């Protein structure tokens, strides 16, 4: 309950401050105005949010689908890692946001450009975290499994992959927030649909209320994705330190 209370208090102070200091609406709107717009402009915002959400989710899933197997391959062989990994790191050092206009030229104004930017931004954290996870299995476990006659497939599916899950899911959580950034950057460069498009139009009209309403929808999309991943994590790795429920000490009260 506490996070909500803090959030409500923040909104109340904001509401009060805008009125008290006579801040003009095109500088900073009141939260209540934004709240009204969230509902009133539903017909425009909701379809735009669906378009953007699609770009985010597809870019993110593509990143998972490519980064995870690639991490497996890189970790499997020192030779492959030494050959490919420097290349991947150099690619990561290129600021992808700066490449977005180039992608627009190559791929057009549609969905593909946006999901590609989302993919590019969310790819690296998943790759790195999965690699770290796959590498951080204790040697003792590997040795024991080998002495039990584990096949390479056993070793991967029964030992390495489950060990890597906490890192993999952590990387996915970070990547999900970056995918949101990627999609919106893609839309800023050029789009005729999506929340990025709504934000650009609102901005050119000095329509701050619409700006804040759009950002709220965008935040909600990111939040839903993040919460979904958190649920998956709770379900997949209940054994991990981050999800353990410790026994609570009980204390008898003296009357």
């Amino acid at each position, binding site marked *: 309950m506490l996070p909500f209370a803090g959030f409500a208090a923040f909104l109340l102070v904001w509401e009060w401050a805008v009125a008290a200091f006579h801040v003009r609406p095109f500088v900073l709107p009141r939260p209540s105005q934004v709240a009204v717009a969230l509902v009133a402009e539903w017909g425009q915002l909701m379809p735009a949010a669906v378009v953007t959400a699609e770009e985010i989710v597809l870019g993110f899933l593509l990143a998972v689908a490519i980064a995870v197997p690639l991490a497996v391959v890189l970790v499997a062989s020192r030779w492959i890692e030494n050959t490919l990994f420097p290349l991947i790191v150099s690619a990561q050092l290129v600021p992808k946001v700066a490449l977005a206009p180039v992608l627009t030229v190559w791929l057009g104004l549609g969905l593909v450009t946006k999901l590609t930017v989302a993919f590019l931004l969310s790819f690296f954290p998943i790759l790195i975290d999965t690699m770290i996870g796959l590498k951080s299995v204790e040697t*003792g476990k590997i040795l024991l499994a080998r002495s039990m006659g584990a096949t390479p497939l056993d070793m991967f599916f029964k030992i390495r992959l489950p060990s890597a899950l906490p890192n993999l899911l952590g990387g996915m959580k970070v990547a999900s927030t970056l995918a949101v950034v990627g999609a919106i950057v893609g839309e800023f460069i050029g789009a005729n649909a999506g929340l990025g498009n709504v934000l650009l139009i609102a901005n050119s009209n000095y329509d701050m209320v619409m700006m804040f309403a759009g950002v709220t929808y965008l935040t909600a999309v990111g939040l839903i994705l993040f919460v979904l991943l958190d649920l998956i994590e709770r379900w997949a790795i209940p054994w991990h330190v981050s999800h353990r429920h410790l026994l609570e000490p009980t204390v008898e009260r003296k009357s």
Partner: protein
Amino acid sequence: MERSVAVTIEGVTQIFRGEAQEFLAIDDVSLDIAPGEFLSLLGPSGCGKSTLLLAIAGLQPQTRGRIAIAGRVVDKPFTDLGIVFQEPFLLEWRSVLANVLLQAELRRLDREHAAARAALLLERVGLAQFKDRLPHQLSGGMRQRAAICRALLHDPPLLLMDEPFGALDALTRDDLNLELQEIWLNSPKTVVFVTHSIAEAVLLSDRVAIMSPRPGRIAEVIPISLPRPRGLDMRETAEFGSYARRIRDIFTRFGVLRSEPVR
């Protein structure tokens, strides 16, 4: 299947290559371990005991020398054995029972038979009511008991133990020592037991192979002819004391232990 096997170690030398130099971990170790024998490798930390154990299991190739189990030369991971390390190395996402059954899964053993045997083993070490718990919900001693059950699930003829009770408190350690002796007396298998506890080695072993500080060599092999089953109170007897003193004297000679009390 044979219930126990002989282990032959001939002139085993292990050299590791570091960044700048090579270093000699084990120097020309030879040992013959009889079928069904309980042999301890006793030595100060860093003397190469664990390295030797890994070499016996075929998990780390030795630089020179030959190791054979039941006449078969070990040149790849040897699977007809059970291993217990100092850490239990349980899989955190599996219940106690599922951890024990990993042994059966990886060996493609009959599930039903393995489950029955696992239940029996867990019962014997007092973990029956905890079989569905996850490792982090258990105490250190219970985790190590589970690791021992896993190592015994397939009734291996050879058991390799690398300081299995080294990370446990003294009381749990005493208790598990007795439990291990009972398991071994009930189903005789060859045991190679690495430890740096003199009392533990004397209590459990048929023979104690004493290793020198690095590079590890076998300094002396001492047969322990105390009657079995041995109880903890046997540690206060004169015979036990004389074995312990004899071993302590060897470590004093090596400079591992001081000869005089510190004033």
